């Protein structure tokens, strides 16, 4: 999927300006950028819920899944029912397998109110994977979780993605999440939003450790770039 010279304005405010981005199949692209730079606008354009004012989108995906910042589960449905909701043809065996993969085994019949924030978000990830989309958009899905849980969630996301193996666009504020997840990391600028740089990490996600030389170097580059764009305090690094 290719975005070429995408522009989007809200009234007088230019949110996206000449934004170019290529999302290849079977890759995870992480989007890093300052708060309010237009990351959610970009995701909504990718999801097809928002139309750009100018620019071209080639190879648009028909079926796009979305993991929101909030879990957006139906409170009156159980974990199993919430996951099944988006693909009613999915077999119970497949849903059970997804539940196992996100570590919710034994909680199939629990309601969202009976789960912790992390568990609810894992349920919403399982729901997104059950949708069997060509591309999955994730808008800071682990924002409300603490650091350790976030890293655990990233690892379980990699685990499911390797089974599913389609493209993911993952918006985050956390450099470590991007380092562990992304085949590519796109850094966005603010006012208006364009793609500043794209960094590539070649090591397979399975073999990555935050202490690796490649990741340490990439983190240093990212911090430098982001410091230019915004107050570096906004970005946490390990």
């Amino acid at each position, binding site marked *: 999927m290719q975005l070429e010279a995408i522009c989007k304005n809200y009234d007088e405010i230019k949110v996206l300006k000449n934004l170019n981005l290529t999302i290849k199949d079977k890759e995870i692209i992480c989007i890093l950028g300052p708060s309010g730079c237009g990351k959610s606008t970009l995701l909504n354009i990718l999801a097809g819920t928002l139309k750009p004012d100018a620019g071209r989108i080639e190879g648009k995906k028909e079926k796009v899944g*979305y993991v*929101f910042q909030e879990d*957006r589960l*139906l409170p009156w449905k159980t974990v199993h029912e919430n996951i099944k*909701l988006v693909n*009613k043809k999915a077999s119970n065996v497949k849903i059970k397998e997804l539940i196992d993969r996100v570590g919710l085994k034994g909680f199939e019949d629990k309601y969202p109110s009976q789960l912790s924030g992390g568990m609810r978000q894992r349920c919403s990830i399982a729901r997104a994977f059950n949708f069997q989309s060509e591309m999955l958009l994730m808008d800071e899905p682990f924002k409300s979780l603490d650091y350790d849980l976030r890293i655990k969630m990233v690892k379980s996301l990699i685990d499911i993605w390797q089974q599913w193996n389609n493209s993911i666009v993952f918006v985050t504020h956390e450099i470590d999440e991007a380092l562990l997840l992304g085949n590519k990391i796109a850094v966005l600028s603010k006012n208006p939003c364009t793609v500043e740089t794209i960094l590539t990490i070649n090591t397979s996600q399975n073999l990555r450790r935050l202490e690796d030389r490649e990741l340490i170097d990439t983190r240093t580059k990212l911090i430098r770039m982001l410091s230019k764009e915004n107050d570096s305090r906004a970005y946490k690094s390990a």
Partner: protein
Amino acid sequence: MKISIFKNKNFKEFLYTLLSIIILVICWKVLSIVVDKEILVPSPEGTLIEIIRIIQSPNFVLSVTNTLIRALSGFMIALAAGIFLGMLGGFFKPMYYLLRPLVLINKAVPTMAMILLALIWLESEKAPILVGFVVIFPVIYENVVEGIRNVDEKLVEMMKIYEIGKLDRLKDLYIPSIKSYLYGGMIAAMGLNLKIIIAAEVLSQPKISMGTSFQIEKANLNTAGVFAWSLITIVIAGVLEQTLKVAKKD
């Protein structure tokens, strides 16, 4: 060692309710002693004797049944119309504005005026049903509209992105949301409904009914009888309300 039953929340609630009833009965007894005129304020024991007499009378079951049939008929018609029109009003803004005057008229028209009009238009057996409908319909309608309007927009967006069809959206998102509002409305409407139906019956005088029985006791200057029928009404309204609450839990 504490007895576990005292930890039970329901039991505590029951105890407080019982205490409140005992206090009310004591106040009632004191008032009846002070006034000392059975025709103005009958004593609790005099009222109890009247309740026993009414329950043992041959027409008691038929009176209650007739009134309940009228109350439930009005209630069911209002429920069906309220749900149907409420969904139209909730989903389609133009329908909401088209229905607004009708709902406002139903809400604002004095109950007594409605009873009199119903008596002019319909026979005495059916007039209370219309009155019940007019009073209950706006309550149900507004609760359904609220249920639809208060559906979380984020959940609607989620369902659109996941390509969930309109029928499934209605079934999985809107109906559960409407249900929680509707039960609240139904519980409030049920108690109101019985009061209104009996008031209409007092004026329309259908053959055998609770309202007619009220009128007979009043005509006989039997205030204890009026008190007794009032207490019977309270008990029936309470039973109906509890039935709906149990249905809601299930």
